[in-house]
């Protein structure tokens, strides 16, 4: 009883001092214990005062990096309240309205799509492929265990995003010099000094989900290679970003 009594865990919970299992159990308890929820909110506010007392101005470059990343990150929709009145009269009618709205939208979109189909097909495919790639990397960026590391060179930066849980990595280049005609940036996983090809990025600003799994790699390297890429790096890396 004593060690399992969840009421006394509010302090350890608020300071993130619980292990994952205890934390999950305590959060389930919170749903049924208004006084615990109240105390946890008060402790969060108290600790915020301890945190705010440590305030330190972050480097100016961080602001630019954060603001530049916003357009690529999909925001979550507001959660729908669990007690929403979806079982009432409205709910039975809602699907009909929703279906009608969907049909209207589809018809409108269809007309536009047909009109633009011929001249824009390839451009649209390219844009869609780009958007998909961006989404893949964004999804990685929002993984709960996502980590990032940034390295700078020649006025540009390369940021590696990785998630151990998803076993994947992505690369975001911003303002690297253009690779030049017939050249491309090539990404590599660094397997203890052996470079494993991980994809091509033909521009100095762009996003790439790396080919292949992390597989215990120590980091990511970037080299300049002939268009089409190489089996092994042909020169010194432009960037080396270690994981960790």
């Amino acid at each position, binding site marked *: 009883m*004593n*060690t399992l009594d969840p009421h*006394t*865990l*509010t*302090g*350890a919970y*608020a*300071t*993130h*001092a*619980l*292990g994952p299992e205890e934390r999950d159990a305590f959060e389930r308890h919170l749903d049924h214990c208004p006084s615990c*929820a*109240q105390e946890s*909110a*008060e*402790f*969060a*506010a*108290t*600790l*915020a*005062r*301890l*945190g*705010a*007392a*440590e*305030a*330190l*101005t*972050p*480097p100016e470059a*961080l*602001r630019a*990096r*954060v*603001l530049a*990343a*916003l*357009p690529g*990150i*999909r*925001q*979550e*929709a*507001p*959660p729908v309240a669990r007690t929403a009145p979806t079982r009432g009269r409205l709910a039975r009618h809602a699907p009909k309205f929703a279906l009608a709205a969907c049909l209207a939208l589809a018809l409108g979109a269809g007309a536009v799509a047909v009109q633009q189909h011929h001249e824009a097909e390839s451009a649209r495919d390219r844009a869609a492929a780009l958007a998909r790639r961006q989404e893949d990397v964004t999804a990685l*960026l*929002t993984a709960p*265990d*996502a*980590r*990032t*590391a*940034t390295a700078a060179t020649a006025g540009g930066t390369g940021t590696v995003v990785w998630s151990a849980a998803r076993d994947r990595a992505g690369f975001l280049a911003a303002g690297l010099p253009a690779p030049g005609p017939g050249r491309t940036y090539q990404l590599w996983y660094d397997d203890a000094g052996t470079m494993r090809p991980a994809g091509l990025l033909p521009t100095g600003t762009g996003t790439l989900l790396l080919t292949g799994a992390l597989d215990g790699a120590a980091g990511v390297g970037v080299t300049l290679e002939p268009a089409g890429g190489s089996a092994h790096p042909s020169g010194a890396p432009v960037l080396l970003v270690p994981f*960790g």
Partner: protein
Amino acid sequence: MSRVVPLAAPRRPGPDLRELLSRVVRGDQEAFAALYDAVSGPVFGLVRRVVRDPAQSEEVTQEVLLEVWRTAARYRAERGEVLPWVLTIAHRRAVDRVRSAQAAADRDRRVAAATHGGTPYDEVAEQVEGRLEREQVRRCLKTLTELQRESLTLAYYRGYSYPEVAQVLGAPLGTVKTRMRDGLIRMRDCLGVSA
């Protein structure tokens, strides 16, 4: 001399964070920039205090602020103010970072160092903003018993789990757990916090 008079939270002349956050939910990037300016100092300071390494602190701060942008819709005004919500995210991410596998060896060294004395809350960070707030927090920390204060500061400022705190302090798990709670209740009352 050591009597502490509870004070209300300092008046913040800054922007209305709830209003900014409600605009952020709608995708307003300008509102997010204003929110960034209001919360990035506390976020970076807290993360830096827990993580220590400047480069890693910057990375974690970036991750925190992008999480705020992504999950702004999860904020519930009835559960408290915006800054505690943001700093809860910041603290969780900072703690995750110091507990990650790469930090394991480093942490062992820190645990060893902590057992040889040193008062965590007494260290001075450079460029401190809000000196008054800092003074008040320190005064209130001094009203705690030693075990309450150490349990709280090792967990909050160093990111120790409570079994780690128990090990460092040589105290039973149950004791550490209740001391953390007792310490927070005293801090809450001393700082005049209501949620």
